[in-house]
């Protein structure tokens, strides 16, 4: 039983937070909801006009594109970042020398400002950027690289077969034999290059415009634009480390006894991952997926930084649509922006609800 005084003190301590939430969330949300049923344009007193803003928004091709882009982006990015975060966490959970270094190094993308990362990616994927440069180099050095790989594979196979013929137990990827194969492959490649049999090819610079109106289509329907694909790669790159931390924390809570039992049963590493780690991490996965979905549905900054470098249709997301409809020169369709924001909120709510309903197994809730 709390005394009256305790309750008052508690509210006093909660007050700063409650006031901030009341003003900047509930009041703002209420106003947005109200504006979404009016003809508000920032400058004239709003008048109620019913559902028209919602009809306008739903009929707007830009909104339809933004909705499709957001959904594709959210689904692809959340899947990628969850899978990679889990794999990274499992890899980092081993006791290795210099683990502290790897843990910090892998966390770097997440503490770097996303604006900075976006600028770096813009630069990497320029028409004369690093991505195109690497592809050009690959094309130019293709004969040498392929020769090296071919000789390496052949040498490795011959060695392993020979060792096995001598009844020695060696695996296909035996490191000692691989070193000899690599040395041999290097020598052969060098010799062929020196004698002029193979050499670096003259190729025109690979010229691909990443931030252009290019789409991956499925049955004639534009599914994913190339600029958005770049943003997906970039977003995955920056969010994986944060999500990895959650998985890493979750991994600490899995009893070692389970792995020992699995070892005794003769489970392979893959089986241990799929049968022990993944099920035990289910509550963490739920959290990671939820955070991922909300974050990706609201993605804005990376698109805003790329801005006019790519055609708007290829990159527009729901949050960016709301922004561009609010901040224009002079009068702006703020009612449509509010309607779109409400729709976005409803979609996120529905997603989280569905996920809660079908995704989380009963044992994880207990």
């Amino acid at each position, binding site marked *: 039983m709390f005394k009256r005084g305790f309750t008052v003190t508690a509210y006093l301590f909660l007050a700063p937070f409650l006031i901030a939430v009341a003003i900047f969330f509930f009041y703002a949300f209420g106003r947005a909801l109200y504006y979404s049923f009016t003809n508000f*344009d*920032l*400058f*004239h007193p709003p008048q109620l006009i019913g559902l028209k803003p919602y009809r306008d928004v739903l009929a*707007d*091709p830009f909104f339809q594109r933004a909705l499709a882009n957001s959904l594709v982006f959210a689904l692809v990015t959340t899947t990628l970042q969850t899978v990679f975060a889990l794999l990274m966490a499992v890899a980092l959970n081993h006791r290795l020398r210099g683990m502290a270094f790897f843990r910090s190094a892998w966390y770097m993308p997440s503490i770097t400002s996303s604006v900075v990362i976006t600028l770096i990616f813009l630069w990497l994927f*320029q*028409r*004369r950027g690093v991505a195109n440069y690497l592809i050009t180099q690959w094309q130019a050095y293709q004969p040498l690289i392929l020769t090296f790989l071919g000789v390496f594979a052949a040498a490795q196979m011959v060695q392993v077969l020979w060792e096995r013929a001598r009844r020695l137990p060696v695996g296909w990827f035996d490191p000692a034999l691989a070193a000899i194969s690599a040395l041999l492959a290097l020598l052969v490649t060098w010799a062929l290059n020196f004698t002029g049999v193979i050499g670096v090819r003259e190729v025109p610079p690979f010229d691909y*415009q990443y931030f*252009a*109106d290019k789409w991956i289509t499925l049955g004639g329907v534009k599914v994913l634009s190339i600029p958005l694909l770049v943003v997906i790669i970039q977003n995955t790159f920056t969010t994986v480390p944060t999500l990895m931390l959650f998985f890493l924390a979750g991994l600490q809570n899995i009893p070692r006894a389970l792995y020992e039992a699995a070892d005794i049963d003769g489970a392979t590493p893959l089986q241990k991952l799929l049968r022990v780690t993944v099920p035990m991490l289910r509550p963490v996965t739920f959290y990671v997926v939820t955070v991922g979905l909300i974050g990706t549905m609201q993605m804005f900054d990376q698109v805003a930084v790329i801005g006019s470098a790519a*055609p*708007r249709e290829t990159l527009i997301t729901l949050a960016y649509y709301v922004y561009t409809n609010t*901040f*224009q*020169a*002079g*009068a*702006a369709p703020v009612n449509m922006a509010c309607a779109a924001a409400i729709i976005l909120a409803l979609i996120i709510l529905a997603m989280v609800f569905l996920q809660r309903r079908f995704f989380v197994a009963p044992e994880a809730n207990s």
Partner: protein
Amino acid sequence: MKNLALLSLAVLASGLLSSAGAQTTIRINGYGGTDPAVVGDLINRFVKPAVAKDNITVVYQPLQGDYNQQLTTLLASGTAGDVFYVPAETLDGYVKTGKLLPLNGLVSTTPYIKTLNAAFTRNGRQYAIPKDFNTLTLVYNKDLFDEAGVPYPTNNETWTSLQQKLTTLKQKLGPDYYGLCLQPNWDRFGAFAFATGWPQFGPNGKTNLADPRFVEAFNWYTGLAKNKVGVTPSELSQDWTGGCLKTGKVAVATEGSWIVNFLRDNAPNLKFGSALLPKNPKTGQRGNFLYTVGWGVNANTKNRAAALKVLNALTSPQAQQYVLEQGLAIPSRSALTNSPYFKKNDPGAQVSRLVFEGADDGYVRAFTFGPQGQDWTKPINEALAAVLSGQRTAADALKKAQQDMATFQNR
């Protein structure tokens, strides 16, 4: 002790001063960047002395970042300055807010170039006084023309004759050199579309991209990319035609007087000349864009009379002559045509003179997107990019552009 006495004296003095004369402060909002220095200088030299007798002081408050966005926020919250820049291309959005004071009858608009006044007029009401402007000229690399033995472009060039000169130049100089830098967007191409007499908006307010005049301009512009006589900036890793010129590989760019300072800083050894844009062979006219910014007055200002006085001082003949001679921009008074500055022989002054002349020669239209904003340019820009990069044929791209434009304008 001594400090305290001084302080109390100072407080007393300031109190006396403020009660003695009711000072009116006029706040001006404008661009950031180099503008605070330039306009601040202008205010100190010409505006403050002119309005001091009326007890008016003037403060320049630059809006850093996206000017339109910030001005919109300030206007909506009622905290915008008394006088502010109004970019012609976004005028329509501001007119709709009702926060721009119509200036008819309040300020004399007759001394300013007519096309500039028109750029700030909607339904007979003029909402801003032109501050300064720019138009496009042909800026060319003299060395490349000399090397190829082709005569420089002149002020009487037509599309056909210019194309011939550029094609010959390309043939003489080989694959690494190009005739004209072709920006794949409306803000350069539009000037050529206007030369055919094509109207940006028809009588019903709709844009017709299937108009044979538009098609003619589109085909000529994109046709230059064949045989690589024309080249897009991105093919040379540049993002505008001035950048093309800087590389020394492209003979001609279409730019305004802003290119002079850029070339001086980035390509100091490049010898450049300038000429008026070529004429369309059928109409015998050239087209051009007016890029202009005006001075607008806040409709809600409490000091309307003072704001108008400041506006007049900002655009006085002395102030404009000063702006011109500093090489900062081309001011908006038509009387400046006789300015000795234009007769100077340096290439920068030459560009300025042609930019000034271009404002009143042929089909000159304000650089504007109409009431629906910048997205209006999107169908045209996409069509230009698709054809110049060889992804579509001109006919195909124009068909799609017209469909997209119709959808956009029916929103």
